[in-house]
C-alpha cells in the first residue's frame, strides 16, 4: 500500500468512533452512521478490539456485582439428576 492521503475507514476516525460505541451497541445510530461504523470496524482491528472490550467490561460488571452467594439451586439439580437416571 502506498501513502495517498489520509486513511479514515468509513469516514469516521478512531477517535470519533469510540464516542459512538454505546449508541452503536444500543442500535440507536441512524442507519447511515451505523453502516459507516460497521465499515470502519471491518477495516480497523484496534477499534474492533475496543468495542469488544466495552462488551467484556459490561460482562465482567455483572459478575463483579453479583456478590450474593453464587450457589446454584442444589435441589433442582438433584431432581434433574434423578430424572436423568430414571430415563
Amino acid at each position, binding site marked *: 500500500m502506498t*501513502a495517498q*492521503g*489520509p*486513511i*479514515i475507514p468509513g469516514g469516521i*476516525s*478512531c*477517535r*470519533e468512533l*469510540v*464516542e*459512538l*460505541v*454505546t*449508541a452503536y451497541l*444500543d*442500535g*440507536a*445510530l*441512524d442507519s447511515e*452512521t451505523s453502516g459507516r461504523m460497521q465499515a470502519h470496524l471491518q477495516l480497523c*482491528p*484496534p*477499534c474492533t*478490539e*475496543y468495542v*469488544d*472490550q*466495552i462488551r*467484556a*467490561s*459490561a*460482562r*465482567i*460488571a*455483572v*459478575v*463483579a*456485582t*453479583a456478590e*450474593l452467594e*453464587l*450457589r*446454584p*439451586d*442444589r435441589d*433442582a*439439580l*438433584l431432581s*434433574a*439428576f*434423578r430424572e*436423568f*437416571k430414571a430415563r
Partner: protein
Amino acid sequence: MDDVIVDADAELLARLRAGDEEAFMTLVDKYGPLMLRIALTHVRTRAVAEEVVQEAWLGVLQGLDRFEGRSSLKTWILRIVANRARTRGEREARSVPLSSLGPDAGEDEPAVDPDRFMPADHPMYPGGWSIPPHSWARMPEEKLLAAESLQQVRAAIAKLPPRQQEVIVLRDVEGWDPEEVSQALELSPGNQRVLLHRARSKVRADLEHYFEGVEA
C-alpha cells in the same frame, strides 16, 4: 497439588458414570459456583443463569459416555456451560428491541485519553490510534474473571458519579432496557446513553490499566 485435584475428579467421574448421586452433588458443589459465574457473564438474570447451569449439567450427564478425558473434567464442564450460556446470551441479545433515538453529545468527557490518538491533521491517519488497546482475547476466562479483576470493576463502578453508577448498574448489571432505565431514573434517552457511555468507558479504561499492570 494439581495431581490431587485431577485424581479426585477422576474418582468422581468414575462414580458419576456409575450413577452415584453423591458424586454428582460433590461436583455440583465444587464447580457449580464457577458455572453460575460464567453463565452470569452471558445472560441477563440470575434465573436464566440457573437454567443455563441446569442445562449444562444435563449436557454433562448426556456426554459422559463420550468424554474421553483429553481435557480435564473441569475444563470440559466449563466449556459446556460457556457454550450454552453464549448461545442463550446471543438469543437474548437479538431480542433486545432497538431504540430509535437520535445521536447524543457528551464531547466534554472523552471515552479514551486523547493522547492515544494521532492528531486531526496527521497526513496518514488523522484521529487514528497511536496507542491502540492491547487485545484481551488471549486472556483466559479465569484471568478475566479473577477475583482481582472483579474487585477492579467494583472499585471502578463505586467511584463513578452516582447517576452514572445507577445507569450502569441498571443497564449492565440488571440488564434493563434503555427505555426502562430512562423512565425509572427520569432521564431523557440521550442523557441516559451519555451517562452509560461515560460509565462504561471509565470501567473499561480502569480494567485496561489494571490488566496492563498485571501483564507487565
